């Protein structure tokens, strides 16, 4: 299947839309802290696979949408995802060569960084510090990374997104 660049863009867009829906999908209360940050995982993948296309700008815009959807401070997720995109694009050649579990660890560190930034922002606006389960989400993200990676990689190969 030959795909024009715009079709490739559609695949990227569709994956981000799916990630945003998963981010706000209602879940039972006890499981909510374990919800991985889907938008970050998808962003990390596309920054790693197509760094010339997806970068800080797209990361920032997706973050802004996340801020509006979850009603956090406008700019909080935008900043986090811009930093995530920056780090991933900088390191993409190195991360690509890692085996999946090592990639998982890098993803874990990036997600931890995001959560830390979030907690700093929450502290700055005098929100109470969340419970310890707050840190479960990066862990779940790390465990899910191989699946996210394989699914998005197959999608990318199928539709030849470059």
């Amino acid at each position, binding site marked *: 299947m030959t795909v024009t660049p715009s079709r490739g863009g559609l695949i990227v867009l569709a994956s981000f839309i799916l990630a945003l829906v998963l981010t706000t*999908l209602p879940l039972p209360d006890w499981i909510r802290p374990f919800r991985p940050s889907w938008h970050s995982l998808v962003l990390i993948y596309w920054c790693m696979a197509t760094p010339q296309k997806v970068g*800080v700008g797209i990361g920032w815009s997706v973050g802004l949408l996340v801020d509006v959807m979850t009603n956090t401070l*406008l700019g*909080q997720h935008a900043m986090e995802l*811009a930093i995530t995109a*920056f780090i991933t694009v900088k390191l993409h050649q190195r991360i690509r060569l890692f085996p999946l579990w090592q990639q998982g660890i890098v993803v874990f560190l990036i997600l931890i960084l995001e959560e830390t930034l979030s907690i700093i922002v929450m502290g700055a606006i005098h929100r*109470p510090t969340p419970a310890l389960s707050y840190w479960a989400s990066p862990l779940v993200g790390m465990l899910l990374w191989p699946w996210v990676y394989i699914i998005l990689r197959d999608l990318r190969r199928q539709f030849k997104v470059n």
Partner: protein
Amino acid sequence: MAVAVLVSLLMMVVDQRAEHLKHVRSALSVIVAPLQQIAGLPASSNEWLSESFRSRQRLQEENQALRELNLKLKGQQQKLEALEAENMRLRDLLDSSLKIGDQILIAELLAIDLDPYKQQVIINRGSNSSVFEGQAVLDADAVLGQVIHVNPFSAIVLMITDPSHALPVEVNRNGLRTIAMGTGRINELKLPHLPNNADIQEGDLLVTSGLGGHFPPGYPVAKVTQVTNSPGQPFARILAKPSANLERAHEVLLVRALSPSTPETPAPAAEGNTP
């Protein structure tokens, strides 16, 4: 990269301190509205299915129960109307300005998870239904929260149990006024400003006092569950349980007080200091 971070930081500061970004948020909310609809689909389709495939017998039973409840409520309503008329007459005699009577709009909660570390929900009415910022939100039993942000087709409601929410209340039994603050736990409010010798007991009903100007007076809020007096402390430790079904509410009522004293702009009082 540096630009993005700087812009984000700037936006956060502006969003926290000023009102300029409200319009940006509302505009972007129109873009994400379809996504929120999709995210709400599983819950709403589940509800639709369970409504469609309910057995005839259960529907009849429900119908019967509702009819009985309706009759009962109508009976109470008759009495209420007489009382309301009498109250108005007496207030007219006293030249008091307070008027009873509120306009009510029904809204549905959207099944969307927002930031899990804030106690807020999103409803399906927005500025198109003339919802306004600071409007009081009730469920069938009691006060639920207030509108903190209005989008064109949706609005965000901060619940009374959010730690940044404070609500002027009074004890229904004796009219003792105080402020109920959220604790961040869904089933708990605290009353931090009452001295040890205040006349308040477990089981007391707290109702809105209407002093902040946002909430119409006289709606139930919570029941006092625990009063702890420790002589070493200047204030008693008082906890209350919200009467509203905060975690199970499905439909909510948006109230607009018809009394002339209702300010349309957010009052700078202790109530509703949204972050």
